[in-house]
């Protein structure tokens, strides 16, 4: 039985990995180009005028946040795009007439999103090295946070895919929720440079904690407590994972 689950899980993961890697020009390259432009414009051109934040060159300050941005968007978009596309083509029925447990289906899709996020994150980091030499302060923590963040947003993408009724619906959350939260999460500035009211508002932005924790893993500087960030991510993963399993067990979005 254990072997059955492993074969099933590996099959879904392999299918998902093949899906995004086959079309890497659509899945990997755009993020890399976008972040390359961000680093060029904000890190190089504008960054030189800004100078330092907290004793660090501005380009070093923003790079962790710039790596998180594609990790969030790619893990989310991979799962929401793939699962909704399966629903749209009805090929998703293949999964539901097979003896797959809800956990295997969900983890398989999530690992597909995580794999894409890791590849994009790694490529963006390599690109950033061409601008500045930014050593990683704690590589284990950086990898662990990449796993947590991509896992979390892959599950969120899955839930979005379950509820989506058209291809337009899969872009609503990334456009109107994730992008604003990411930009307002302290990627380009220190939250403590904001007026007090906006500092308080930022405390309710979960992505601000993730950016802070990631920045700590990269350059050893934290604006918010890293343990709090990790705990918050575990709680969010637990809640969203449970919700996704509930939706799968009920067959919402798939069964009549």
């Amino acid at each position: 039985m254990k072997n059955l689950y492993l074969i099933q899980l590996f099959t879904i993961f392999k299918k998902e990995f093949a899906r995004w890697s086959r079309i890497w020009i659509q899945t990997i390259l755009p993020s890399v180009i976008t972040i390359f432009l961000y680093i060029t414009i904000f890190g190089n051109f504008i960054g030189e005028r800004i100078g330092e934040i907290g004793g660090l060159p501005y380009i070093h300050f923003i790079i962790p946040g710039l790596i998180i941005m594609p990790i969030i968007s790619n893990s989310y978009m991979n799962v929401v795009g793939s699962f909704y596309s399966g629903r749209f083509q009805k090929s998703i029925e293949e999964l539901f007439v097979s003896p797959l447990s809800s956990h295997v289906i969900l983890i398989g899709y999530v690992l597909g999103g995580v794999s894409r996020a890791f590849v994009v994150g790694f490529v963006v980091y390599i690109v950033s090295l061409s601008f500045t030499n930014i050593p990683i302060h704690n590589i284990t923590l950086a990898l662990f946070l990449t796993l947590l963040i991509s896992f979390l947003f892959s599950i969120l993408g899955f839930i979005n895919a379950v509820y989506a009724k058209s291809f337009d619906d899969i872009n609503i959350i990334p456009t109107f929720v994730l992008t604003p939260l990411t930009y307002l999460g302290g990627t380009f500035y220190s939250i403590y440079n904001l007026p007090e009211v906006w500092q308080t508002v930022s405390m309710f932005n979960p992505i601000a904690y993730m950016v802070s924790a990631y920045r700590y893993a990269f350059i050893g500087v934290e604006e918010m407590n890293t343990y709090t960030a990790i705990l918050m991510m575990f709680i969010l993963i637990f809640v969203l994972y449970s919700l996704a399993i509930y939706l799968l067990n009920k067959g919402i979005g798939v069964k009549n």
Partner: protein
Amino acid sequence: MTKYALEINQLNKTYRNGVTALKNINLNVEDGDIFAFLGPNGAGKSTVIGIITTLVNITSGTVKVYGKDIAKYPEFTKHMIGVVPQEYNLNQFIPIIETMINIGGYFGLSKKQSLTKTQQLFEDLGIWHKRESTPRELSGGMKRRLMIARALIHNPKLLILDEPTAGVDTELRLTMWDFFKKINNDGVTIILTTHYLEEAERLCKNLAIIHHGEVVKSSPMADVISSTRKHTYIIRADSSIIDKNIFEKNIHIIDDKTCELTVDNKISITEIINKFKDNNINVVDILSKRNKLEELFIELTQTK
């Protein structure tokens, strides 16, 4: 081991919009059978199939596959079932051989096991040469055959075919019939829904007809064939039959020497031939025109 591949008891389905699709369905399909599940469009056939394959939730009632309740033992029952849906539900963007390997993986087969089985099925169904194509590059008939192969990758004991030959040309349909007979002889129980009643009559041993969500007939095919009240024949004579008034009604003249005659099933072919002889006409050829099942189907689904 139960003698039934499928047992449906008191099955009801009401959709969220209030539409009642099934009303107290009771149905048994014996192991080894080829079972025709017939009904007009919208009768509830696909809902029943959706429930058996767990794609549609049950409102009330039970469905057992080889003695196990699908709600309590979904993994067991899914291993036992292969399904060919009515609508194409293939991943359009990957080569069909990858689809087969993926489906095999979902059922716990290794890549090697999936490839071996795929080659056997694709060769039997005549699509091995298309293994690297995507479904978008296949004809309608090839897609149908792919869906049949996909349903059989894990060696199911019960195969559910929801209009498997829809849109398929005659020659291919005959080939598919032979294939269904072959796998049935190999021990696979088949449930077939089709609008081609000749197909059901030729292939199936038992049948059920569903109409407005209710089973209106369930019996052996042999009983159906012998129970219909009217027979229609095409009769060819050796001389003109026009203006002869051999049969006063239920006769349709096709040409000078050919007619179509519908008679009560109590009237034998010998009686028909003798009646022609009484009018100094010899019958050269006599063919049964409509299949009996079609007559029953029309009778049940129009009178209800």
